[in-house]
């Protein structure tokens, strides 16, 4: 055979063809892809022994126990803790992915200042402190310094108030009540003894919820689950909500009222309860203003309310009967995490159902709670006055410090902005993420994120027993992160350290000898701890202190506050002015608890998305096909959602589960860089709420 050039080429051709049907090239392509995943600079879990550490989630107020599975010192997985006194193994999707959050792209890990073109740029801590101090000193007469604390009830909250107490005109602010709004209203309607209230929902046999996501992370989710999935007699749920939420879908009875008419439903149910003698007459007759209340609810017969709300009268009657035959039953207002509560007037009407149902100071209803003890010397502290931000006069705040720990509930920037001195109000954020209201801050002095520092987890605001646990520091803190106590120290010129205060709090509990401490090994009474330091170490290691139940002492004076209800609720059936013709649709934001405020979402959170949300961008609004047709909008169109406060671009998804005339928009971070929220355009009504805003939608060319 001639080994000429031509045959050599054929040999090479054969070899080339042959190699393609061997694993060699394909294996090398695959290997190069794997090789690129293992470059030295790509973060990797360290190797090492696997350990388990116990801590507490701080992403929402529920205080769920967390078992952190670690390799070396690095958490790689979080799961619930079976037997935990609050969560009993429950952990929501947000909590399961919480160890990803410190690495989120919107994490601030060094001080930032708003630059001349509006973007945040790095600034030294000393420079920021000097400029903020200058602004505090130079604030004008009649203006205030304020701290907005989204997580009240902590020791750090007291530190904020003590810091503000050093200024004559400072005020400590909290967001509008949300999950606790019903409890707040009931406190005003009764002479309940001093202390807080909580829902004893684990023992409830029925609950009527006005938009509260009972089955989607509300209150202490494990307690709701315990009632809902109780063997033999599961808690009945009546959900009054415009949106077909998961709770609405799973409820025993779903009443879908037109937006803004929920209070009319509450009044109609009260009407049925009273007029059909479904509840003892004494529940109403012992209250001040019983006759006026009877007269008021007389204006809300189911037939009339059906015309207003769109709910058939027989459904309203069925809801009332379901509650009456399943006592103890509770009525819960507050809406979901994105839409927030309704007006005080409407929430009073909802809260009044609890009095009618006899739920107040009744096991399975609403019970008193005694707060945990604090060191005696703390009672000597001079504290700034406390107010809801909604109650502060407009244009009055010269310097606003946004607290370190976002609540995860919605807080529209429009609500904050109107309280600032126009053009001069300075906003300083201590939040660890550039998200929610922090996006608008002039300075960001970021605190440590969850798992990076010791954090106190106080009593969940809806609980019936006081509790305290500590979230442990399992991750290293980035160098540029600043402890809020250090910021306050520098601004006040007084040394403030949080750690020793937390230890003092543990010592006060140990001295009180109240309650028990539960950890992975079991429970033991506080009396078993010989020193405060011993108790503190148990809490840091993942233990949870819980107090005992307080003996119920029914109130003597009960008032349905008819005048307060009438202010707003009567408007629903006797509107003084027609709806805003320019903005005929109702924009209703909604959100998952813990994920709509200054929080960010871990990638694992995608597991709770509906398929329709995963189809494309998260920047979307859902509308009914008939609403879309009227606006000449097709599925997937880019649209402009406009309100009186502004507009935002969205992608329209047509969804027959949405009520006609309603635009549903998720309230979490949006925009290509997560740089805006639909909450920025929600119009506040005169009650300071944003559950439903007049809006219109038009297709963008």
């Amino acid at each position, binding site marked *: *055979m*001639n080994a000429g050039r*031509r*045959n*050599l080429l*054929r*040999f*090479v*051709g*054969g*070899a*080339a*063809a*042959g*190699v393609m*049907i*061997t*694993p*060699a090239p394909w*294996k*090398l392509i*695959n*290997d*190069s892809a*794997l*090789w690129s*995943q*293992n470059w030295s600079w790509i973060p*990797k*879990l360290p190797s090492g022994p*696997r350990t*388990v550490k116990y801590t507490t989630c701080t992403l929402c107020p529920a205080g769920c126990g967390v078992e952190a599975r670690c390799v070396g010192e690095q958490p790689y*997985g979080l799961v619930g803790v079976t037997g935990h006194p609050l969560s009993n193994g429950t952990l929501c999707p947000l909590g399961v992915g919480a160890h990803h959050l410190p690495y989120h792209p919107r994490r601030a890990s060094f001080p930032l200042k708003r630059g001349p073109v509006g973007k945040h740029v790095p600034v030294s801590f000393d420079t920021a402190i000097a400029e903020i101090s200058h602004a505090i000193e130079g604030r004008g007469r009649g203006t205030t310094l304020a701290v907005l604390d989204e997580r009240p009830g902590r020791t750090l909250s007291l530190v904020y108030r003590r810091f503000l107490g050093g200024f004559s005109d400072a005020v400590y602010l909290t967001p509008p009540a949300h999950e606790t709004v019903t409890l707040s209203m009931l406190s005003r309607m009764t002479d309940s003894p001093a202390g807080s209230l909580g829902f004893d929902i684990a023992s409830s046999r029925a609950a009527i919820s006005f938009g509260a996501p009972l089955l989607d992370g509300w209150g202490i989710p494990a307690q709701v689950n315990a009632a809902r999935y109780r063997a033999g007699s599961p808690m009945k749920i009546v959900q009054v909500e415009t949106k077909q939420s998961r709770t609405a879908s799973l409820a025993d009875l779903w009443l879908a009222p037109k937006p803004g008419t929920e209070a009319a439903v509450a009044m109609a149910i009260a009407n049925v309860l009273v007029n059909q003698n479904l509840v003892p007459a004494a529940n109403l007759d012992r209250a001040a203003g019983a006759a006026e209340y009877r007269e008021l609810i007389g204006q809300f017969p189911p037939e009339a309310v059906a015309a207003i709300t769109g709910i058939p009268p027989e459904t309203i009657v069925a809801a009332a009967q379901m509650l009456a035959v399943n006592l103890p039953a509770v009525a819960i207002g507050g809406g979901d995490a994105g839409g927030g509560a309704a007006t005080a007037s409407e929430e009073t009407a909802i809260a009044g159902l609890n009095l009618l149902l006899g739920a107040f100071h009744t096991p399975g209803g609403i019970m008193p709670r005694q707060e945990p003890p604090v060191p005696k010397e703390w009672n000597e502290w001079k504290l700034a006055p406390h107010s809801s931000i909604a109650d502060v006069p407009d244009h009055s705040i010269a310097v606003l410090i946004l607290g370190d720990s976002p609540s995860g509930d919605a807080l529209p920037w429009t609500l904050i902005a109107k309280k600032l001195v126009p053009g001069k109000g300075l906003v300083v954020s201590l939040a660890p993420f550039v998200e929610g209201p922090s996006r608008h801050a002039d300075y960001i002095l970021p605190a440590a994120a969850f798992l990076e520092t010791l954090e106190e987890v106080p009593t969940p605001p809806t609980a019936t027993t006081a509790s305290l646990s500590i979230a442990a520091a399992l991750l290293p803190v980035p160098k540029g992160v600043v402890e809020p106590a250090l910021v306050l120290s520098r601004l006040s010129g007084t040394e403030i350290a949080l750690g020793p205060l937390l230890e003092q709090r543990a010592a006060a509990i140990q001295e009180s000898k109240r309650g028990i401490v539960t950890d992975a090994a079991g429970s033991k009474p506080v009396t078993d701890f010989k020193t405060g330091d011993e108790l503190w170490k148990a809490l840091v290691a993942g233990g949870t202190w819980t107090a005992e139940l307080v003996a119920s002492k029914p109130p003597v004076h009960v008032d349905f506050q008819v005048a307060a209800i009438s202010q707003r609720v009567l408007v629903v059936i006797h509107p003084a002015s027609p709806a805003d013709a320019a903005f005929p649709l109702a924009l209703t934001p909604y959100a998952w608890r813990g994920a709509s405020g200054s929080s960010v979402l871990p990638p*694992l959170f*995608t*597991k709770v998305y509906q398929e329709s949300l995963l189809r494309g961008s998260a920047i979307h609004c859902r509308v009914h096909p008939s609403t879309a047709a009227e606006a000449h909008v097709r599925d997937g169109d880019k649209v402009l959602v406009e309100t009186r406060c502004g507009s935002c671009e969205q992608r329209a998804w047509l969804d027959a589960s949405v009520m006609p005339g309603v635009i549903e928009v998720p309230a979490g971070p949006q925009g290509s860089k997560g740089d805006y929220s639909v909450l920025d355009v929600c119009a506040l009504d005169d009650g300071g709420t944003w559950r439903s805003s007049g809006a219109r939608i038009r297709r963008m060319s």
Partner: protein
Amino acid sequence: MIAGKLSFIAGLAVSMALGWYAFPHVLYQRVDQPLRFSHKVHQTTAGMACDDCHSILASGRFSAIPGISKCAECHAAPVGETKDEKLLVANYVTPNREIPWKVYSRQPDNVYFSHANHIKLGKLACERCHNDHGKTDTLRPYEFDPISGYSRDLGESKFLRGAAFKTRTSMKMDDCSACHHERNVHTGCLDCHK
């Protein structure tokens, strides 16, 4: 013309021989295990079962390769005469040092695998994935791909598995998917890649 065809076929044959036979030998590097370990002796002579050492803990975690403390329960002192057992006691049990086993089945960091789910819920036998590994009299050398850094057991398709490797079962993602499909089990990305 014939010479041309022969040249082509020769080239084809040479490259296929290299690609199928020589390439795996060149690619994979072999490392001996630190000790000879006989599953067979433990199962037959000692009468042990798989879950005496490889068990699901109360926490739900799987004790894959037992720590030296487990070995020490029986081998605090040599119970036989073999050289390897003496090495075990002298080098690892007495100084309480873990044996640096090379793990054939160690998955990449981005893979989550639950033995508890597969054994308790899926009711799979150990042999479904580990073949006859539990009956071997010695541990074969650990082979790994120096480019990807992974064990050969993870990176090799069925085609490359020769008859010499009867005790090895591939643990590629394709094999996981195939088994899930066979059993009509859901296969979402996030099931394994958390």
